[in-house]
């Protein structure tokens, strides 16, 4: 049975292999140029001097060098963001939607289901082969992308941010497996490959946004951090903490000395500029809610776990549907 599942997918495996090679070529070319700039341009040395300090002077902490680096690769970063966000969805749908639906459309099920083998084994084999291909190819892509993001993560400190977090580490693998399982399930239920693709795209985007916006900030209890408005040192923004909470245009809030919230977002004022701090008072503090950078991999694991669990649930639903509901 596994033999048949592989054999039927030779074309798709070759197409996926070519896609992987193209992706690897593009990522390694652009990635190498970023890494060499990172090392040769002095940014790496600057970070080494900083040694992961949690607090840095208001103007310092490699911020100018990092900004110059980020500006240089601004277009590339935007391009990566636009393309890589959709890779898991595309890979998952390409493999998942036809997994069951194509056989229903061509009625090859009437050939294979009348051989000496149970329908349950058939469906689980299809799902396992598709799952394995999607997982392996996405592990390759995600590893490359994670390496590619290295210098950008360091220069921007936003590895933990929405959309950036979603493209590296483990989560792309989870997203792709989920998309494949969802597409296979909808394909089994509707019996139509194209319809399954369309529905999967919509459902996938809704679930992804839902988990990212509603669930992800709550994976763990956030930490609080305060520091004076009138100050000469600020938290090291390039460490990669995730400042997710807060109001106003900034990422946190300002508390007056009395403890009430002031209007507007965080600010950092030099002592010699009273116009900057006069309305909140000299003793006001900034308050921010954040997840420290050290939680990055824990969050990656939790989010991947959620999507893999959803995928397993959908696979079980698909198997049940094929065994019991398909006539």
């Amino acid at each position, binding site marked *: 049975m596994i033999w*048949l599942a592989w*054999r*039927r997918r030779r074309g798709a495996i070759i197409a996926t292999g070519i896609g992987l090679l193209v992706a690897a070529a593009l990522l390694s070319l652009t990635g190498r140029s970023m890494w060499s700039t990172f090392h040769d341009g002095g940014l790496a040395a600057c970070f080494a001097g900083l040694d992961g300090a949690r607090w840095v002077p208001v103007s310092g902490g490699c911020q100018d060098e990092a900004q110059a680096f980020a500006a240089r690769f601004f277009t590339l970063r935007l391009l990566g963001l636009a393309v890589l966000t959709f890779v898991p969805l595309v890979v998952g749908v390409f493999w998942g939607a036809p997994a069951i639906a194509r056989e229903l459309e061509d*009625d090859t099920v*009437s*050939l*294979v289901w*009348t051989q000496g*083998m149970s329908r349950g084994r058939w469906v689980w084999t299809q799902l396992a082969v598709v799952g394995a291909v999607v997982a392996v190819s996405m592990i390759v892509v995600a590893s490359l992308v994670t390496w590619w993001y290295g210098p950008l993560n360091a220069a921007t400190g936003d590895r933990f941010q929405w959309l950036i977090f979603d493209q590296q580490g483990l989560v792309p693998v989870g997203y792709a497996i989920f998309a494949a399982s969802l597409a296979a399930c909808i394909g089994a239920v509707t019996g139509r490959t194209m319809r399954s693709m369309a529905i999967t795209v919509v459902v996938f985007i809704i679930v992804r946004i839902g988990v990212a916006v509603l669930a992800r900030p709550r994976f763990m209890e956030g930490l609080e951090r305060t520091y004076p408005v009138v100050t000469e040192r600020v938290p090291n923004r390039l460490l990669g903490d995730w400042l997710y909470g807060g109001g106003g245009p900034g990422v946190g809030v300002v508390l007056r000395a009395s403890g009430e919230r002031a209007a507007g977002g965080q600010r950092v004022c030099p002592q010699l500029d009273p116009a900057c701090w006069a309305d909140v008072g000299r003793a006001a503090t900034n308050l921010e809610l954040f997840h420290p950078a050290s939680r990055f991999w824990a969050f990656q694991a939790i989010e991947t776990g959620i999507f893999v669990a959803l995928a397993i649930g959908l696979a079980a639903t698909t198997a049940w549907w094929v065994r019991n509901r398909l006539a």
Partner: protein
Amino acid sequence: MTAALETTALSKRYGRAWALRDCTLSIPSGRVAAVVGPNGAGKTTLMRLAVGLHRPTRGSVCVFGRAPRDDADSRARIGFVGQETPLYRDLSVADHLEMGRRLNGDAWDGTSAIGRLSKLSIPLERRAGELSGGQRAQVALTIALAKRPDLLVLDEPVASLDPLARRTFLSELMGEVATRQLSVLLSSHVIADLEHRCDHLVILSKARIQVLGDVDDLLESHRVLIGPTTSELPDAVVVSSHEIGRQRTILVRSDQPVDAPGWAVEPIALEDLVLAYLSDPESGHLPGPEGRA
């Protein structure tokens, strides 16, 4: 002896529409049974129920005494060729044989399958999507036969073939049936194809069985009567009646020889018999106590 195929009040519903209703039939082992009927009459549904692709909504279906839907062992005794003879387009003929070998274990008869295909000069390395309709049908039949089935179920296997390929396919099939002592359930809407090839007939109409019986018995009990419109109707069941000018042609059914003075009595061809019933879905003929005759 267990019937090759036995159904009791077999019914299948899709949504709110019944594809098959109260279908009770028994096809003895070793027979070639033909299922005929207009499109949408339920032929495909009956066949797919018989091979375990569908589960009955009501009633039961047994192949050699066992329900095929949930019993892989009983499915191992059935060879099936679906409508449009589905094959994996991207796989070669040899890949299909390999698939059969891997999925059917010891029962698989690969040697005779390869022999059969080479006799038909079908290249093993060709992809199924590149075969002609006739070749596809032959490959599908070869796969079904290589399982060494006791019951062969063929759903309109010749529908898409030209007349010559159709005849070749059917005589090939009948040759296999004769040597292997198979039971066959075969559907077609080309009735001429079935004449002299089947010995059992099932006419389906509007999801129900309209006529069921042994072909020889049916041909023997039906007579065409031709006479003037003024002649008195004989003492027999009139299946259909047509008038052209002053001449009337009627089809009658009777278990006794028809005594009809003033009428010319002629035997009927299978095709005419089937068409007479199909053109009048209200008339029916079923054997046994529950028959609606």
